[in-house]
């Protein structure tokens, strides 16, 4: 298979642009370090160089302007400022549109104005720049004195440096180009001839450099060897000891020099670990190949199940052990393949700081976005579909829930609101939450709007939860103004539908004046689930095990009716049940003893009455196809060991359907 370098470049460009965005936002909030500018420079430098190699000359030409600007920032000629952050973000957007246009997408807008802004910033007088005034701002640690500065450099390279073609002598020659240099080699690590490996480098060095350059220029000398080596650059006193007084005892450690040491070495920022190509051991795999692999594993699971059933029916004892071993191996293969599809939700969370930044600016609000649980893993196909619902939730939050800074201050709240985006595993689900410290849901306004739209009677008695759920109805919005951000009442309804399609659930909690929490519960994977196989008449169905809490029996004689709802007593609690034979209009008589599968639906339990419970079943989910897309009570199907099809129930949809059915029967409407 031929390898397309442009495709590789586009994937890497995506990652670099995400990194650029993250770094640019940290410039604005004052959380950047000196390394941030270096990272930005390297990212644009790589975009330019690799783009040129792939023939993407427009991208390379534009990126050159940004690279030049950042080089000036590195040297201190241009300071870090809000304007710089803004220009870098816009440049990143423009590069995205150039790449998209190059791939046959919408033509990119002209970059002339942006280039003019970049050049103007590069030529600007530092004294007139708008500084970052965030109280958390730390000065970028760039040392650019015009007078000579003494630097103490400790360089202990990776022993394999020589085999990679790197030459320490060349590095020291480059250092000498920066200023006067005293290089001291330490030979203590060199073994005797009997154990020395000629290819390895046993030498390490301490260097005193006197130069007017900054630390970055020094670090640039080691740019291609730094990742695998130990490199420390410290400011040494100008009157640093002469070589004669250096501790040149080979047994001594580094850094034993007189004078004060003000450590200006930048610690690796925890939020942006530098990638080292030598340490990476990942392989890029196209998603469609992974999907094909999952499908094949699914077929394997189903056929293994059929084989097991056939062997069981044949009663041949010699097949029992191999089939059991096959089942174990297939289960392990299934778990491994599904594991490959799991990605940390942080890949999705990474989109949102920019969204919150832009929306806050548009709405005149001040918001901090805090993310937690970014390492929580979800199936890729769920992640792909979770983005839009989360964007809707964040937009609603920013538009409706978060108050303007002055209003917050008047209430004694901090001017800056906090939106907390979190993900946590709970059993076989993941709960993703969006929580704010805003004004909370106005129950009175919601109720009034619902009465106005005749969704509820004016005297209806509703719990808080019922009121909150009104917000999830189509077209519902209490916003008096439709903004470009939200207010059309489309957002939350679309969110609910999308979450239902993922076999998840959505709930709201709110406290007036304190804040609101939107919780989205999702299954870990959509491809293969543990299911409970049940039978009604001659048909088999699958109930997702993640929803099942227990099974109980239901005798015909025990059925009771109360307020038009079927109820069963389960350990002292009355649980409503749905007669699926009736709901699905299955012909025939129910057995004398039926089974009730108790499932968790949102915050309460519901029973599903079936003829028999046949046991658990590894369920490979197959789509029903486009002709059955509108049937929402069934989320898919699976093929059983005997080749028959079992339909997989969508619990939420079944409960909704049964509720509507019961309502219609009560008012005498036949369906």
């Amino acid at each position, binding site marked *: 298979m031929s390898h397309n370098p442009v495709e590789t470049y586009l994937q890497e460009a995506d990652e670099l642009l995400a990194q650029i965005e993250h770094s640019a936002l940290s410039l604005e909030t004052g959380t950047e370090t000196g390394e941030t500018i270096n990272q930005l420079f390297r990212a644009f430098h790589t975009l330019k160089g690799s783009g040129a190699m792939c023939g993407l000359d427009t991208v390379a030409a534009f990126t050159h302007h940004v690279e030049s600007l950042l080089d000036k920032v590195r040297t201190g000629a241009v300071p870090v400022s809000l304007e710089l952050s803004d220009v870098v973000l816009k440049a990143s957007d423009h590069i995205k549109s150039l790449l998209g246009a190059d791939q046959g997408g919408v033509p990119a807008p002209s970059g002339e104005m942006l280039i003019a802004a970049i050049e103007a910033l590069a030529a600007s007088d530092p004294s007139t720049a708008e500084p970052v005034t965030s109280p958390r701002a730390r000065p970028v640690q760039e040392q650019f004195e015009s007078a000579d500065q003494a630097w103490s450099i400790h360089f202990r390279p990776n022993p394999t440096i020589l085999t990679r073609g790197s030459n*320490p002598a060349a590095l020291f020659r480059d250092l000498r180009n920066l200023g006067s240099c005293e290089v001291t080699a330490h030979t203590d690590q060199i073994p005797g*001839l009997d154990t020395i490996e000629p290819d390895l480098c046993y030498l390490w060095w301490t260097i005193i450099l006197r130069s007017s350059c900054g630390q970055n220029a020094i670090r640039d000398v080691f740019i291609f060897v730094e990742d695998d080596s130990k490199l420390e650059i410290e400011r040494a006193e100008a009157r640093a000891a002469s070589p004669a007084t250096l501790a040149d005892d080979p047994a001594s450690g580094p850094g034993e020099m007189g004078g004060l040491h003000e450590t200006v070495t930048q610690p690796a920022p925890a939020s942006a670990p530098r990638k080292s190509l030598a340490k990476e051991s990942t392989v890029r795999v196209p998603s469609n190949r992974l999907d094909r692999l999952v499908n094949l594993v699914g077929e394997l699971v189903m056929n293994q199940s059929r084989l097991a059933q056939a062997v069981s029916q044949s009663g041949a004892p010699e097949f029992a052990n191999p089939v059991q071993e096959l089942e174990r191996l297939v289960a392990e293969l299934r778990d491994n393949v599904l594991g490959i599809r799991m990605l940390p939700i942080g890949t999705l969370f990474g989109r949102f700081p920019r969204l919150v930044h832009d929306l806050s600016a548009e709405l005149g609000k001040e918001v901090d976005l805090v993310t937690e649980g970014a390492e929580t893993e979800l199936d890729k196909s769920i992640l792909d579909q979770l983005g839009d619902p989360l964007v809707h939730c964040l937009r609603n939050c920013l538009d409706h829930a978060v108050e303007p800074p002055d209003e917050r201050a008047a209430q004694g709240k901090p001017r800056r609101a906090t939106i907390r985006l979190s993900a946590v595993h709970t059993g076989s689900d993941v709960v993703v939450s969006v929580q704010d410290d805003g004004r909370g849901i106005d129950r009175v306004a919601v109720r009034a709007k619902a009465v106005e739209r005749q969704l509820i009677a004016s005297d209806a008695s509703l719990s808080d939860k019922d009121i909150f759920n009104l917000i999830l109805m189509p077209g519902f919005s209490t916003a008096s103004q439709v903004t470009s951000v939200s207010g059309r009442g489309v957002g939350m309804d679309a969110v609910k539908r999308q979450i239902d399609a993922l076999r998840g659930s959505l709930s709201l909690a709110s406290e007036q004046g304190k804040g609101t929490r939107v919780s989205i519960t999702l299954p870990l994977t959509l491809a293969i689930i543990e299911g409970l196989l049940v039978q009604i008449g001659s048909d088999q169905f699958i109930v997702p095990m993640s929803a099942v809490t227990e099974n109980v029996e239901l005798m015909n004689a025990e059925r009771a009716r109360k307020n038009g709802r079927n109820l069963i007593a389960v350990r002292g609690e009355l649980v409503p049940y749905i007669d699926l034979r009736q709901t699905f209009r299955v012909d025939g008589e129910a057995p004398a003893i039926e089974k009730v599968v108790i499932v968790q639906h949102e915050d309460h339990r519901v029973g599903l009455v079936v003829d028999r419970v046949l046991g658990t079943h590894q369920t490979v989910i197959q789509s029903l196809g486009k002709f059955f897309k509108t049937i929402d009570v069934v989320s898919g199907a699976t093929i059983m060991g005997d080749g028959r099809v079992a339909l997989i129930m969508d619990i939420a949809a079944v409960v909704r359907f049964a509720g509507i059915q019961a309502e219609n029967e009560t008012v005498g409407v036949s369906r």
Partner: protein
Amino acid sequence: MQIAKADTGRILKLSGALRIHVGDELRAALLDYVGTASKPVVDLSEVTECDTTGLQLLIAASRTAEHSGKPFELVGVPVAVREAGVALGLTVTAASPDAVPGRPQDVLDADPVNRGSEDVT
């Protein structure tokens, strides 16, 4: 690189480039020589190039000799080798087992003929 014995086998003469690509061969030759010679002397007068590997092996040879209680000498140190050393922060001299590579010292050209008048530190 060429390796030869001179002065009835008392001196090991190295010629050509002492670089990483001949590292294994150089190590084996030095190990054999230092192990057998009672007072190892390595003549570098015809060495044309030397890199980090070459210098490390010479230091290893002096260390091996030192551990065996033998004196070790480098003679005919050419400009190429001295400059390679300076570039790496090493001072290459006609070294006795007492000298420590890396200590700044005056560089001396050691002449095998006038060895008796060498200023060895």
